[in-house]
């Protein structure tokens, strides 16, 4: 199958058939009208040939729908801009070698699950010795001093600790996202670090299942990592960024410029 990257459409069983499955609930009791409303809604999304294949009254004046429909829209993959955190993830040994060769000192990384969030499994997967899926965590790196503060750490505590241990990088985790609480928490932290003059001195990284690099940058973080991240992904980013900053001989100000607006950490 040769694929025209200018026109990428969903695929059911035939190229460009544009087939999509949807499901949703309408706050109406089941009736012919409700069914028609569901169909109209699908049409309003610009989809064609809507098929309401299932509808069920799920109580309390709600009707659940499953639909299939087609889209004539397409995406031009050649035009997409995706910003990678790094061009190539290094392996543990490579990272260790890199730190020894280019930095010649311990890198201090501070991790925490902030504010009301107590989901530590994710940050533990990155920080703790054991790691995740057979990928060791940062504690296993000889040239990294990894300090994991654990759950429900307030921004204030984090600032104190970061100063105390002279952190090179702060890794924060946010898992609960309901009502966008993660956005509120992350924004508050970024502002606090700024106000406390810590922001410029650290690489600030956030991770979690609903986090991605783009969102992180929008929030003023240096990088963001989503589901399936391993310690080496973050370590590569941290170490490469540190080296670049030190090479510029001017960690403070270049760190600052790297913290926002800049598209790719590589491009600094």
């Amino acid at each position, binding site marked *: 199958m040769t694929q025209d990257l200018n026109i990428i459409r969903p*695929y059911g*069983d035939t190229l460009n058939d544009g087939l999509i499955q949807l499901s949703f609930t309408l706050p109406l009791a089941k009736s012919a009208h409700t069914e028609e409303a569901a169909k109209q809604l699908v049409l309003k999304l610009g989809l064609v040939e809507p098929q309401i294949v299932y509808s069920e009254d799920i109580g309390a004046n709600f009707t659940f729908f499953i639909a299939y429909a087609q889209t004539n829209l397409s995406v031009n993959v050649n035009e997409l801009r995706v910003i990678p955190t790094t061009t190539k993830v290094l392996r543990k040994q490579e990272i260790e070698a890199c730190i020894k060769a280019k930095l010649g000192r311990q890198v201090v990384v501070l991790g925490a699950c902030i504010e009301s969030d107590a989901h530590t499994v994710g940050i533990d997967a990155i920080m703790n010795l054991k790691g995740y899926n057979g990928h060791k965590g940062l504690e296993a790196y000889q040239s990294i001093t990894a300090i994991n503060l654990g759950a429900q750490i307030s921004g204030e505590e984090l600032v104190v600790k970061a100063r105390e241990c002279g952190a090179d990088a702060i890794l924060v985790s946010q898992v609960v996202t309901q009502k966008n609480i993660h956005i509120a928490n992350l924004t508050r932290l970024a502002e606090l670090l700024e106000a406390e003059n810590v922001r410029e001195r650290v690489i600030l990284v956030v991770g979690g299942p609903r986090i991605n690099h783009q969102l992180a940058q929008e929030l003023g973080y240096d990088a963001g990592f989503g589901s399936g991240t391993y310690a080496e992904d973050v370590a590569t980013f941290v170490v490469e960024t540190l080296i670049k900053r030190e090479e510029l001989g001017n960690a403070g100000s270049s760190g600052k410029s790297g913290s926002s607006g800049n598209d790719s950490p590589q491009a600094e």
Partner: protein
Amino acid sequence: MGKLNIDRGLVRAARVAAEEIARGVITRVSGKTTTSIERAVLRLLGVDGVDSQGVPLPNVVLEQLKQSGKLGQGAAYWLVNAMLAYELDVPELIEAASKNAINLGDAPAQEKGRSKVLMDRLTAHALDHIAQTRQARENYLCSLGEGSLPYLYVIVATGNIYADVIQAQAAVEQGADIIAVIRTTAQSLLDYVPYGPTTEGFGGTYATQANFRIMRQALDDAGAKAGRYIRLTNYCSGLCMPEIAVMGAWERLDMMLNDSMYGIIFRDINMQRTFLDQYFSRLLNGWAGIIINTGEDNYLTTADAVSAAHTVLASQFINEQFAYQSGMPDSLIGLGHAFEIDPKLEDGFLLELAQAQLVREIFPNAPLKYMPPTKYMTGNVFQGQVQDALFNVASIVTGQTIHLLGMPTEAIHTPFVMDRALSIANARYVFNTMQHLEAEISFVPGGKIQARAAQVLADAVKLLEYIAQIGLMEAINRGTFAAITRSPDGGKGLDGVVAKTEDYVNPFWERMSQGRATI
């Protein structure tokens, strides 16, 4: 040994009755052949291609013979005779015949000895080719290995063979072991096999030899990449059953949907026609080492899975005996059954388990084919995943062999590429997490499961004994299976049933059924 503690005497009684039933049918249709069997013979002898109108050459030749009333001696006789008479090889002869330059039936009779020599040579050539194909499969299985049991069987059905190939290759990467190319709705009642690669079908793709070849190649490639042999399946069914058997043997299909009664019941094909066709095609399938899949699952789409459970079992006994009549070994008799009990029925799953285990214990060496829920699937694709999950559980817990994957979108459309991926993930999870559960559990003596199994078996025996009395044709006439009635002289394709003459020749029939009950 078994978990159901079934009465082995009843199982023997069932086989005795079923043997009598199958033999009765074969005896009754003996002395006849069919246009489709003769076309299959022509194909085996090398007749292939289409004429200028697009009519397949086996049909062209057949029509010539039929119109001149000469079919009774067998197409093989006339082909060989004419080859000798006009000193032409098969393609030359057929080309001439198709242009009406030659009428096969008009050729002067040739010396018997010479005829026999040529006939033997052509027959040997064809059977050798099949044997080689079979060997090729063995070699692949040896070098590549195969997926673990139960085999994951999925369908592709885009209508376009090239799109099917893409779907099939994705399915193999997802973990499928067997790919079935579903046939377009209209094909089973065509009295010819379409020719060449095809790109338009409805609810399926035309079964053509070219399509078989294209898919075979694609699956060999995908299998090599995946490191396991991928089996290919199609439908040896409908008015052209024997011809498709030839194509399947040629192109190394590994399985074929092939039932002794499906066409009669579900396609209203004449029963004499079907019984003859199924006999001959099973000879071929057996020779080619192709596993047949019987179609008892279909009964449960029109009849109720609880009250008609014994008809499924009875039919399996009959299908088994028909296969034995054609000399097939147990290892090729993929009896079909299905998980089709109403999900709303309390303890329905217990009955499913009873049935699946019963079939497993009665046919321990058959590569049973277990069909997923279809009838009670709805547009609720999320709940569909659950229904399919329980089907997967039933399959692994009762040690089924060929596992046809249920699709969440069963009630909606033929599978999308993502539907198959979801289904395969579903089955792989269930099979893996319950890998050795079968060995871990036993059924409480005298419990609901054992009682149900005993009941179904007893009812099946009763039914078989009744059928043995009145004969299978009459039984079908009375609506015994799938609640559908068909008369012996009704249905499509009766005009293709032809009386054999004394000197009827069919070298394949002879060779393949050596040492077995012959018609």
